């Protein structure tokens, strides 16, 4: 089955990316995690995201676009990246999620991908 792993991080973790003292440890944690998933051959695709302050959110209200600075939800944990993984079951996906560096400070959400839509009967 394919699952999306939505990786959230705290403001402190996003700040580590920019901190010359903490950045090497921060990135090496993620490199190790991603490397292990790659070696297990479970990554379908995946990306890290720039921090939430680079986000822009749009809502259409009464036909008018309302554009706002920042992510869609004001929360302590913000999306920092995602992976689509191919594993046999949720339990395997959870075992991988537990290894994510941010799991101890923020959260990892696991969701099955919507299966392909059936083709129209013809």
């Amino acid at each position: 089955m394919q699952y999306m792993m939505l990786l959230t991080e705290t403001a402190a973790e996003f700040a580590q990316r920019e901190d010359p003292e903490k950045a090497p440890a921060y990135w090496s944690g993620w490199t190790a995690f991603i490397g292990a998933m790659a070696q297990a051959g479970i990554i379908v695709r995946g990306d890290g995201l720039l921090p939430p302050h680079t986000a822009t959110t749009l809502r259409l209200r009464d036909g008018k676009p309302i554009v706002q600075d920042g992510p869609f939800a004001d929360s302590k944990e913000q999306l920092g990246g995602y992976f689509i993984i191919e594993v046999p079951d949720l339990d395997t996906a959870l075992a991988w999620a537990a290894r994510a560096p941010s799991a101890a400070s923020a959260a990892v959400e696991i969701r099955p991908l919507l299966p392909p839509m059936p083709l129209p009967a013809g």
Partner: protein
Amino acid sequence: MSEAAIQAAEHAARTAYGRLVARLASRSRDIAGAEDALAEAFAAALRHWPQRGVPASPEAWLLTTARNAQSNAGRHRRVALAAAAALERRQAEPENPAEAPEDWPDERLKLLFVCAHPAIDAGIRTPLMLQVVLGLDAARIASALLLSPAAMSQRLVRAKAKIRLAGLRFELPGREDLPARLAEVLEAVYAAYGTGWEGTGPLGLAAEAIALGRLLVAELPEEPEARGLLALMLHCEARRDARRDAAGRFVPLARQDPRLWSRPLVAEAERLLTEGSRAGRFGRFLCEAAIQSVHAQRAATGRTDHAALRLLYDLLAQQAPSLGVLTARAAALLEAGDLAAAAVALAALPADRVADYQPYWVTRAALLRQQGLVAEAAAARRRAIGLTQDPAVRRFLEDA
């Protein structure tokens, strides 16, 4: 012929329901689909068996028919589901039609542990196990667990969908996850036993719970709490014939005739309790079994060791401070003649939760009577009667 066929179908439904659902669902991971397929197979049995006779192995016939129903349903949905993964699993486990039902692997434990998965909403795990493995309907589970039937059905449907869509693994959990999930499974099996025990539940449910208890002990021999639960259920089961008098009236434990207790069942319970205690981890069910063991000693000694009971109830209240345990502890203090301690224990219970809790009012009525508060005792007893479901218990309270 037709009567025998209907009886055979009913017998299979009662004894093999959980085994069949578990077998069907462990392959497809689709519990609702397995239940639907099995319902179709039972309907087919009621159509075919009266005319063509009951097959040599009703269980194998039902399994094959349900498998066919499953693959018919699957054909309509296949594209939408992750078909490749399902097909791989199917190839991994080839069908063997010659296999006799008694040689089937028992998949019920796997199914129980899936229902106890942390990815499933905690409040629906026990109801899910009761329905899926023991075949209880939503209304009966709701009344056994004191929940609303409509909300119950909806949450059961949602939980089954989550198991299928999120792809939960149908395997026994690893060593790390086992203790937490085992506690949930034991809880559900005990709830099933309680539902069958009280006389309001369907026939055979208590026996089914005990059978699951035996399966747990056999499959998880390292787990002392599984032995504790089985010992507890067997102690209660041993008293089945002593719980009603000749006129069908309820007889409380303290007034039961120990000669009516089943000695083989008591002996088996005692053996399990001894084995379980050796592990050095004295969990909630071992503790409850030890309490029942103290009561069982009355058959040999002619008296009840209230000091031992008090110690065990204190331990149990620390481990599992549920309303039921705390009320039972107060009742034990009262039995031991310590009115003051019983009054303190009852007063400590949360007022909003005892309002409709029958055992609380029974215990309170007994306390007030012993304190000589006749009018208050009568009022508490009336309240207890109003909260009683079992007619035999109601009559007992009315005569008290």
